[in-house]
């Protein structure tokens, strides 16, 4: 099956065994993201330290493999990053999955997140990958809900 470009082994593994899949009690920030077209729902929790470091990032919810793997990778990538770095990664990831950032040609900070590069070939799946990131972005900006619509 010629789908390995989208469903890489790591994406399927993370979708089944997501990291940081838990709530954070009394989280500093949280936001529920929803895709009304497919019913995916992801709540992102963030704790930020005094020096603006994301001390803990976690999520809960349900969704497709792309959405779950994206949320998992997001939480592990952002832990320990400064708020400004998180916002920069949000922007880079968003551009990556929309096909606007070529990780081979443009400087970036995406690291292993480049495994989502091929999402850009599946326009209807961009929202799946970016939903948890929108929730994170909105959480950090004091919004309680995010939607891909």
């Amino acid at each position, binding site marked *: *099956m010629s789908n390995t470009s989208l469903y890489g082994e790591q994406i399927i593994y993370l979708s089944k065994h997501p990291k940081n899949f838990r709530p954070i009690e009394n989280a500093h920030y949280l936001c529920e993201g929803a895709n009304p*077209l*497919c*019913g995916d*729902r992801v709540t992102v929790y963030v704790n930020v330290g005094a020096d603006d470091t994301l001390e803990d990032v976690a999520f809960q919810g349900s969704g*497709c493999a792309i959405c779950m793997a994206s949320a998992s990778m997001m939480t592990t990538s952002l832990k320990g990053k400064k708020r400004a770095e998180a916002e920069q990664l949000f922007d880079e990831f968003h551009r990556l999955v929309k096909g606007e950032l070529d990780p081979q040609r443009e400087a970036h900070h995406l690291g292993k997140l480049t495994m989502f590069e091929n999402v850009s070939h599946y326009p209807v*799946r961009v929202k799946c990958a970016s939903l948890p990131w929108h929730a994170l972005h909105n959480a950090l900006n004091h919004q309680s809900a995010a939607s891909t619509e």
Partner: protein
Amino acid sequence: MTAQAVLATPATLDAVALRSDFPTLRRTINGHPLVYLDSAATSQKPQVVIDRMNQFYAEEYSTVRRSIHLLSAKATQAYEGTRRTVAQFLNAPETRQIIFTKGTTEGINLVAHGYGRKFIGAGDEIIISATEHHANIVPWQMLCEEKGAHLRVIPVDDRGELILEAYEQMLTERTKLVAIGHISNALGTIHPVEDIIRLAHAHGVPVLVDGAQAAPHMPVDVQALDCDFYVFSGHKACGPTGIGVLYGKVELLERMNPFLGGGDMIETVTFEKTTYAPLPHKFEAGTPAIAEVIGLGAALDYLRGIGLEAIATYEHQLLEQATARLSSIPGVRIIGTAQRKAAIVSFTVDGIHPHDIGTLLDQEGIAIRAGHHCAQPVMARYGVPATARASFAFYNLPSEVEALGVAIEKTIAVFAL
């Protein structure tokens, strides 16, 4: 000559031959021959429909009814000819009972507006079913909110069959309308609309039947059903998008308020008062979708040429094959197992989200729908956020059912890491 002219017998059809009428079915997707299993969302178009609309635009284009030149007369003739075709298609007694709309959704909204806003008030009740798609929920909710009326919902059992005993108990003097899908788009259930209509009429309650999923797939006789309103869409019936039909009983249509104002829906206009045109034009404001109406006529002629009985019989064979094939795959759960079903198979696969199924099948050239099918309450009833849905038409083949089964097995293998 189209392939429909070489059908084997009236009781069956030659799907291989019919496929040659559909240009889209000749293409490949991701290197595989297209297997189009999304006809419940929208059907593919035969060449005769494409050609008829092209011909109208290229050689006959004009407006209808209002101009006196030859082209307009011809366009009007073709436009009203489709009205006769639709009347025959539904076995409506009179052509003036056929109203052209933008589609099923607009037809339901037209009745909610023209009938509901006039005859339904505070404390009244409207009955729908638990399997409706949003188009047959939201207009009634909006009406209820505006008028202080209440929506009652016929429950559905685990198989996807409506619980008629509960429905009977809902029918009271407060009931003012029943709006029911003929076939559930999410489950495939063919609802017992004959019983639903009979019981409603025993209480003097009119019934609207949403035939979006039925009219292209089985014979529909509005006189035999005795329904008060029947709606369907052109684009699910091999016709163009943006066109649909509302059938109504004359006495109800006559009593209803117009839906939209302007254009041909008037009889006389002064700044003091407007009188409305007689049926059907009272409900067709503005310049209509002329080419689409003419295309719809070609589509319905095409379907009648094949025969709706033959279509229903053939598609039922595909349903039985698909049900057996998918049921044999461990981890596959079919949602909706009613005794009377149309050729729609909604399913889930353990541990794999329907969107992932949809993408992986697309890689094999198989087009299905994955999501809530604009029927979120149905999904909630069965405890799933979404399903994968394979929906069949007469142009599908047994080999395509098998291709679906194989692709699902491949999908499961990909996720078995």
